[in-house]
């Protein structure tokens, strides 16, 4: 393998670790803010991977200062791509946080499981159909003293 082992391996481990941590946060977390932070981590990892794509050891900054042209300059394209990507990430995260604020205000909770249930209930209510009832929900308890009621009803 011809990739310069030391530095690029470390960067790859960092990028891979960030991606893994971000993905873990998104799929495993139940708190909405944690998921948003995990998205930020994931995007950081992806940006790092993009920068790594044309990494070369010992290159100079791709800027010409005082008419002194360096021998080997770094690749400016991934830098420009990551610049764009970071700005996009900022925009999306800002919008996400705004949404989280509204969700907290209207539902009062940031737990994603509870949010899902209540959203399904709200949608069902708006549509005028019955609320979705889980098949695992416990049976309604019969009031004591009801004469002749079938307990299995």
């Amino acid at each position: 393998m011809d990739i310069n082992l030391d530095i690029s391996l470390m960067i790859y481990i960092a990028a891979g670790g960030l991606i893994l941590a971000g993905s873990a946060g998104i799929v495993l977390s139940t708190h909405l803010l944690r998921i948003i932070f995990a998205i930020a981590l994931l995007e950081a990892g992806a940006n790092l991977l993009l920068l790594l794509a044309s990494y070369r050891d010992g290159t100079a900054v791709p800027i010409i200062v005082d008419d002194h042209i360096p021998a080997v300059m770094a690749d400016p394209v991934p830098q420009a791509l990551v610049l764009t990507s970071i700005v996009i990430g900022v925009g999306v995260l800002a919008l996400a946080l705004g949404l989280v604020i509204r969700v907290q205000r209207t539902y009062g909770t940031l737990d994603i499981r509870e949010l899902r249930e209540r959203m399904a209930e709200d949608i069902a209510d708006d549509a005028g159909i019955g609320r979705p009832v889980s098949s695992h929900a416990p049976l309604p308890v019969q009031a004591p003293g009801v004469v002749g009621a079938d307990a299995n009803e």
Partner: protein
Amino acid sequence: MRRFTSALFLIGLGLLIVAIYQQLGLQASSNIGQAINTVAADQLGAANFVTAVVLGYRGLDTLVELTILFTAATAGALVLGTRKPSTKRDPDAGFILQTGADLLFPLLLIVGLYIIMHGHLTPGGGFQGGVILASAFFLPILARPGSSIDHHWVSFIEGLAGASFIYIGLLVMFDGKAFLSPVAGNGVFGELFSAGTLPLLYAAVGLKVGAELAGLLANLSDTEAVD
């Protein structure tokens, strides 16, 4: 069940990341970055090749990126709504923050404008400088939550700056060349007024980003907290 499948997915992802490293072949022997390094100085006259890529070769990406910020700010304003004037505001911050904000405001303004204007010569540019400008305008709000940004000015500046970016690009088109071509000559290499329209474009970008982020931050801080 969900945790189980999630854990499986993550283990798979981890293995995939390791496996990719094993498989990563040789880097491409030649790529567009190297080619750009060779020709950018002559074609665009910018000393900073990253700026040459961002505003020149990939100018359309930058335009779309600006639009994404604009859309996020618009959608954010749509989501967050306006504050009822009767709600209580947070009290003013302490002495240190107020003095610090007063001292830092002109400093941040100058640094931000400097970075924007020198984007084609030194590292930096419109986005970086714009963020600094936004923080300059947001500090007073942190120090005195009672004061707030005038959103009319914010939307005015961001709309005008964004439109001028596209306008500069369109002007070129009517000249017969393709959209977003560099014009106005290259000037003397390394001077402040060089590289054609690049400083103008970055100025538009910087103002737009600054106005937008300041407005977005103001919106976020303006929303009422649940008591």
